[in-house]
């Protein structure tokens, strides 16, 4: 992969589920090593977009390239970590058993302790998942997604339903991983989380309204709050 190749490149992607148009000509590019935010209301197509990047959804038209390879391509999955919206874990197993299982799928059992350290669950490693609070479940789920030290990490609304203090912790962990060279794509419908992303895309009704840094987006809309920028840009035709 050439150093300037985007980690993720979507070009004019569309996807419909029966009569519902989930993605409608969406394009974006994520640079290696950045934290890139997908910001948009519920139902705007964020999850479909992320699923398309891991090959769980096939595009009806358009091009999807991940880590320099044309999707669908199973070999990409070895270098991708994916955290689903719902903290998908085995509730009857302990935290460490869950993490170890996913580690084994990538042949990276050596990463278990480090992953638990990142999400600060080392001391609760033997707790059964069913007994955990929502925040801890999310962190355990994150540990499963990063245990193989992926080059690209995809997080679908990782901070939904967790309290502000934990949310700050999760974002700190993400910043640390990005510093170590991981590309992170994270979706959210909470505007204030966007400030923690280097760049972001505003998504609505399956279209990318605008792409850029927070400052660029505010400037483009001529407003001082990101929320206002979102509302303003929604009224104009997609960029």
């Amino acid at each position, binding site marked *: 992969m050439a150093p300037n190749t985007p980690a993720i490149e979507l070009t004019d992607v569309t996807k419909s589920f029966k009569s519902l148009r989930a993605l409608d000509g969406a394009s974006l590019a994520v640079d290696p090593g950045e934290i890139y935010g997908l910001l948009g209301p519920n139902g705007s197509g964020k999850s479909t977009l992320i699923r398309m990047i891991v*090959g*769980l*959804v096939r595009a009806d038209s358009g091009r999807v390239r991940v880590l320099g390879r044309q999707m669908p391509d*199973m070999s990409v*999955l*070895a270098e991708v970590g994916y955290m*689903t919206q719902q903290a*998908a874990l085995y509730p009857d197993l302990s935290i460490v058993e869950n993490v170890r299982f*996913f580690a084994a799928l990538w042949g990276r059992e050596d990463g278990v302790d480090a992953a638990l350290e990142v999400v600060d669950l080392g001391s609760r490693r033997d707790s059964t998942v069913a007994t955990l609070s929502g925040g801890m479940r999310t962190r355990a789920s994150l540990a499963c997604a990063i245990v193989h030290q992926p080059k690209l990490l995809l997080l679908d609304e990782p901070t939904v339903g967790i309290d502000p203090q934990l949310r700050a912790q999760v974002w700190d962990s993400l910043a640390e991983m990005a510093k170590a060279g991981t590309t992170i794509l994270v979706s959210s419908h909470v505007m204030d989380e966007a400030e923690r992303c280097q760049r972001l895309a505003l998504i609505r009704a399956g279209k990318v309204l605008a792409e850029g840094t927070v400052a660029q987006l505010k400037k483009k809309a001529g407003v001082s709050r990101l929320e206002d920028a979102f509302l303003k840009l929604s009224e104009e035709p997609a960029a």
Partner: protein
Amino acid sequence: MSARRILALTRRLLQQFRRDHRTLALVFVAPIVILSLVSYLLRGDTTGPKVDLVVEDSAQAAMAVAAEVETSSEIAVTRTDIARARDDLENNRISGYIRLPAGFSERVTRERVVAPEVTVQGDEPGPAETVVKAVQSATGAATTTLVQGQSPRLEPAISYRYGGPSLDTLDYFGSAFIVFIVFFVVYVVTSVAFLRERTQGTLERLMASPLRRLELVFGYMLGFSILALLQSAVVMTYSLAVLHIHNAGNPALMFVVVAVTALMAVNLGIMLSTFARTEFQAVQFIPLVITPQAILAGIIVPISSEPAPLQVVSNVLPLTYAAYAMRDVMIRGAGLDYPPLLLALGVIAAFAALLIVTAGATVRRTVG
């Protein structure tokens, strides 16, 4: 107690039923299909068990009995000689043979004893009883017209190729029931567990990992097979040591039959659960897939007593071969040198392989 709250619940359930076409179809169609199947099975045209008749006495009484036996509606009779009848029995072409030996008529007139020889397979309870009953009614009808006054005593000499009069109902049905119970329980546990992977979201995670679809189904197969093997061992031990179900064969071979059947059930569970979205739907496959097999696999009604079209269906059901194999071992005392047993085991294993490969193809990588 509030009637309003109760009725709110009732109304909600009815609304849900109306939306759930699959459940509706099942609730109304499944009982009708199953009942039709049972009624056809029990009332449909059957020829009755095949029986050879050997007559070695040409006197009047023997001729009269032979004529009555031949017209019996309960059994399908072929006249032949003793060598041929023994050969037919040996090669499982008939359920049994009736022999009226030399001196049969003389004993009827002199001793007032009707003594036909009846030899049956004895590996299934149905045909053996039918043959004996047919002989009794035939001799009864024949001798009342022959002998005046005191009616003769019927003393058939019944011998069994397998089992014998000491075998009770449980001994006959037990063997097939053991495989059925293992098959059923293993199927339910596996299909529901595989479905849980989908409903709790972990399947999506697995699909976004380097795990391949065939690796997924093989992993499930191995995991549940270990559980199924332990279950088989427990069920077998209980059947033999506590219930004392008759076993003429090698317990190790019994275990092989149960284990291969369990493996097949694991794969069926995985395969069918790829067609279901919820655990409830997986359970709905039971009346569609398990019940017909329970009815047609020769567990309750011997396959030889089924109407001919149903026999064709029976012969393509995997559980039929499991029941065959188990009877071969437990009642016939068959070993691995017995070709029909090898064939049955091969068929079950082939079903297992076919199901797992199909499951690998039907489990979907994409979600939309």
